């Protein structure tokens, strides 16, 4: 008996792809119908459809993606130490400045990034003032490179220079490392392009007091499991990109006993704890490298169509895909963020999307877990229903669900993980990123927060490149 005969007599359960009139008529007859939110694949572009078809139903791709997902989900990022960028970042030199996003030249850099570069050159003693710094930056003597190409990530401008202390995340499952500076707090800070006396003083303090204190405590702790902290934080209303209140609190709880045990001078202890406590986003510089460690381990798997990097330099948005190994970037123009402005600022003031923090979304947290972080909704505009909707839509473009990070508002469904370039193009659904807005002038700071999506062309270019590799 064929499956046609099995259909006869069964309850007819229909998926309707196309006009809703048919759905309405079926429902009137009591049939169960699910309407598809259909739109032309790849926006109807025949070239992309051809590439999609080439990449469809290939066991090599399915196997590669399964491997990538397994790595991402099972990565165990642990904060193991703090070191100096020059000592721990492979390939780092005294004259290297790392920045957020895909490659960008000094001439094309966005305002906040230029400011941060100037600040870093002064901080490093390579220039004594702004004029010298600008001259040096344009002289060709400085190597500019993306953090991502050095196993590192940085929020906003994302500037990392040789003397800066970096938190060292060790992926215990796969053995690789990821690095990120310590979060400087809000207001006038280097990552928003500020480089005045106060900023440089704070950076120096981070280097000389905060980092050594935390290093001692981390050593005593034997390592702090960031995966576990993220898992708890997402049950406490964080999505670990734009909201890190719970994560930061959990971090303080984890580190405080060891800070005390480390036998630090009383006033150091006070300053350290007060600093972390005053900065809701301290944990961001831990969730980001944790995500980076997991995704780096999954990069470079031949045939995989899983996205391993999404980042922005304020001018361009760039992605990397596992199946295009090394530093193969697919870029498009950085978009403007849609959301709420802080009082006194308008959209005119905002810089296009900037920072490596979209690594959180690449990892399945951040905007992808927004439905579990209702408090952030007020901050970026919209309703809780919208936030849940965003989270749900992300399952359409991802490959797996990461049960380590579950969404309480979706009945503890695992985070949508493993963005598949093919699915993004097929559906036209772009990843949702929940992010802060930088002022376009250096040093002003954050001017708002909201939602943004990558430019579709990053994914289109990646798809075509992947299809080309299958030939």
């Amino acid at each position, binding site marked *: 008996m064929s499956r046609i005969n099995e259909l006869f007599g069964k309850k007819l359960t229909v998926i309707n792809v196309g006009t809703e009139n048919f759905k309405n008529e079926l429902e009137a007859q009591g049939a169960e119908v699910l*309407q598809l939110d259909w739109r032309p694949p790849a926006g109807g572009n025949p070239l992309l459809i051809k590439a999609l078809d080439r990449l469809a139903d290939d066991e090599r791709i399915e196997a590669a993606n399964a491997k990538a997902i397994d790595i991402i989900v099972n990565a165990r990022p642990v904060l193991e130490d703090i070191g100096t960028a020059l000592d721990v970042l492979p390939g780092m030199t005294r004259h290297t400045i790392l920045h957020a996003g895909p490659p960008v030249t000094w001439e094309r850099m966005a305002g906040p990034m230029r400011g941060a570069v100037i600040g870093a050159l002064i901080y490093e003693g390579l220039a004594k003032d702004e004029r010298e710094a600008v001259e040096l930056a344009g002289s060709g003597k400085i190597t500019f490179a993306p953090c991502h190409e050095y196993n590192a990530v940085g929020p906003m401008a994302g500037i990392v220079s040789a003397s800066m202390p970096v938190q060292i995340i060790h992926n215990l499952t796969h053995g690789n490392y990821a690095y990120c500076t310590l979060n400087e707090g809000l207001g006038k800070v280097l990552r928003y392009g500020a480089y005045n006396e106060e900023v440089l003083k704070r950076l120096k303090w981070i280097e000389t007091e905060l980092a050594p204190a935390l290093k001692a405590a981390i050593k005593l702790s034997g390592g702090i499991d960031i995966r576990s902290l993220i898992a708890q934080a997402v049950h406490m209303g964080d999505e670990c990109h734009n909201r890190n209140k719970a994560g930061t609190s959990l971090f303080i709880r984890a580190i405080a006993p060891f800070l005390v045990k480390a036998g630090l001078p009383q006033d150091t202890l006070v300053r350290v704890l007060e600093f972390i406590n005053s900065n809701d986003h301290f944990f961001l510089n831990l969730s980001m490298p944790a995500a980076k460690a997991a995704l780096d381990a999954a990069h470079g798997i031949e045939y995989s169509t899983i996205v391993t990097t999404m980042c922005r330099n304020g001018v361009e948005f760039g992605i990397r895909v596992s199946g295009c190994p090394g530093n193969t970037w697919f870029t498009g123009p950085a978009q403007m963020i849609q959301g709420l402005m802080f009082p006194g600022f308008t959209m005119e003031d905002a810089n296009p999307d900037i920072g490596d923090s979209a690594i959180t979304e690449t990892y399945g947290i951040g905007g992808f877990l927004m439905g579990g972080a209702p408090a952030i909704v007020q901050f970026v505009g919209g309703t809780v229903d919208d936030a849940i909707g965003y989270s749900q839509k992300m399952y359409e473009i991802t490959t797996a669900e990461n049960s380590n990070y579950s969404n309480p508002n979706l009945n503890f469904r695992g985070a949508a993980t493993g963005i598949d370039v093919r699915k993004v193009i097929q559906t036209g659904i772009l990843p949702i990123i929940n992010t802060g807005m930088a002022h376009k002038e250096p040093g002003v700071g954050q001017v708002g927060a909201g939602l943004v999506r990558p430019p579709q062309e990053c994914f289109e270019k990646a798809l075509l490149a992947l299809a080309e590799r299958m030939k």
Partner: protein
Amino acid sequence: MAIQIIIKKNAYHDSVTLMSISGKVAALSGVADAVVAMATAMNKELLRNIGMLTPAVEACGSSDLVIAVKAESEEICAAAVKMAEEAFAQKAAVKKNAGETVPSTLQSAVKELPGANLAIISVPGEYAAREAMQALKQGLHVMMFSDNVTIEDEKKLKEYAHAAGLLMMGPDCGTAIINNVGLCFANAVNQGTIGIVGASGTGTQEVSVLIDRFGGGVSQVLGTGGRDLTEAIGGITMLDGLAALNADEATKVIVLVSKPPAKSVAEKILAEAGKCIKPVVVCFINASQPDRPAEQVYFAASLEDAAYKAVKLAQGQTDFGSACDHAALKAMAASRKAKLAPGQKYVRGLFCGGTLCDEAMYIVKEKVGTVYSNIAKQPEAKLGDPHTSKEHTFIDLGDDAFTVGKPHPMIEPSRRLPRLLQEAKDPAVAVILMDIMIGYGSHSDPAGITLPAIIEAKRIAEQSGRHLEIIAYVCGTDKDPQNRLEQEQKLAAAGVTLAKSNARAAYLAAAIVS
């Protein structure tokens, strides 16, 4: 004239929604042209023709929405655009309440609804084959309403479905009833023991409706799409359907409905029918009857004859007789003929249902000779201009010439009305023949919407001292949402002569003018 053009990037809407909104906007007083459409190559061409293709629109892709209005003033343009935007907002609001998540791909839909067993696909033809293949790969049976699918894709889909044991109905399949649920364009008919496999939408509707009328009922009604019985496809779906119905315990009699198939395919199908353990009634519309391949295979002369024989067979009878009382029809024709003025000699058929048009035209042609039509196969009978009738003329208003960018007349039967009035003005016209298609998918009140034009048509003729005979056939049942009886009463009150089947309507019309 003021022009306003709004572009909404990446805002896809299906063509039915767009056509209905376009229609509403265009109907606003003061609006000269209104196009609410996706920026496909075809729609861009349309915009170019009416001088509204701007460079911005030209740069758009087929997932971008364009609202373009040309009107007497800026204010009317703005009001029209607002109206369109409100219509979209309303649709979005409805969607939101219906369910929180609306999946975007078949893969995720199947996860959401694990019991799903059938996909209905009505997206534009260029994308339809991809979706259908995905549905089949997910193990779903498919009903593909979309047309404009290549024959190569159709073959690929059907071969895949056949190997997987799945049903691949379509492309261009508009009618099926599975497990007593009518799909797309279907009628509410009694459940029973007659299974149908149909390669023609309205032909299949007619057979199922008449089975109901004759006191029978259907077990399953499967569609194949219009090209299944061509040489290239080889009847894959009809053969699979036939085998399934032959194995189905609830089915006692099988009916096969198709326009004349390719010879080799007809032979293959008849050979399989000959092996069936159940009676099979074969209705190859307007084809000469081949030799019976086996005892239990019967040929039907018309759709009505197929329904009638199937009901008789289901009751265990093989002594058929005829359902149609031709003597009574002749008497009725004579009484109508007596009312005609001397110059009135032609029939004009205005049809929404393609196969019904075909069948009626064939019947009339047998009696009166040449009949002109937009769907005629013989070149000499093909109408040069489908908008102008000539002697005996039959128009299929569902043909491409009338439907490009517009809803099918079964959904929007008002599109027939201007033609009805045009025919009424022609003093040579004796009879206007119409089908009124009801059932799921069809317009909610086709008789009601046609009524004012019928009254006007009769008035026009009467003013010139003529009697205009309007014959209508309501294809549907009293269980359909529109209710056949109510539809017939409305028409009868306006002096329309009602027929009990499409074939009888045609016999009557032919008898009046011959």
